[in-house]
């Protein structure tokens, strides 16, 4: 399941909903991304811009690809947009499977692909002003790991 929203989410409630009532689920892996307060200079806030319509489309494609590669019983991606304070949650990715191997691998895959494919852009506000976050080469490499499969 995919959700793109401005408001915060409740990780405990989301994880509970993800696995409830499916007796095949033995493993739930999850990832929460948070706004760090530091990026060289003290961060005052971060704004996430996105491309409505394309975001949901890309996240659905990514989720479908994970389900094709691993035997998942359920999965969830929630990604926020708008202005966020340090410490706030940005993203939740969760996967549920019978065994942990599939849950872990799919969760990591989803996060890696999301980082390089989902149309979100971060700008940071510090005392020095506002600036757009640059894409990390490591993120391209991390996503590249999954290409051969």
């Amino acid at each position, binding site marked *: 399941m995919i959700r793109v929203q401005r408001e915060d989410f409740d990780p405990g409630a989301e994880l509970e909903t993800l696995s409830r009532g499916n007796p095949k689920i033995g493993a739930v892996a999850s990832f929460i991304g948070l706004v760090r307060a530091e990026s060289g200079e003290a961060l005052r806030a971060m704004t996430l*811009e996105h*491309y409505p319509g394309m975001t949901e489309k890309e996240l659905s494609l990514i989720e479908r690809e994970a389900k094709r590669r691993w035997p998942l019983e359920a999965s969830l991606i929630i990604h926020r947009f708008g202005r966020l304070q340090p410490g706030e949650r940005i993203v939740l990715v969760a996967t549920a499977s019978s065994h942990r191997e599939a849950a872990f691998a799919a969760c990591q895959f989803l*996060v890696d692909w999301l*980082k390089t494919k989902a*149309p*979100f*852009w971060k700008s940071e506000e510090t005392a020095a002003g506002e600036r757009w976050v640059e894409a990390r080469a490591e993120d391209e490499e991390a996503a590249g790991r999954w290409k051969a499969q």
Partner: protein
Amino acid sequence: MRVRYFAWLRARIGRAEEEIPLPPEVGDVAALLDWLVGRGGSYEAALANRGAIRVAVNKEYVGFSHPLAEGDEVALFPPVTGG
């Protein structure tokens, strides 16, 4: 054709989107970029480094050789930084 700009491309160009009647010489994305650069000013500055530009047509990633048609929604943006 609707052209949309995101993140620092939007900020540098100074607008989020615009309607552009498909010029006859613009057959693909690369030609659209040339055409926009030809406007000079903020377009030329924002679109100078093509390696930093990603493109979606009708909300799907495409390469610079992707053909364009009247009615397309073309989006230009820098590499994504979500997650």
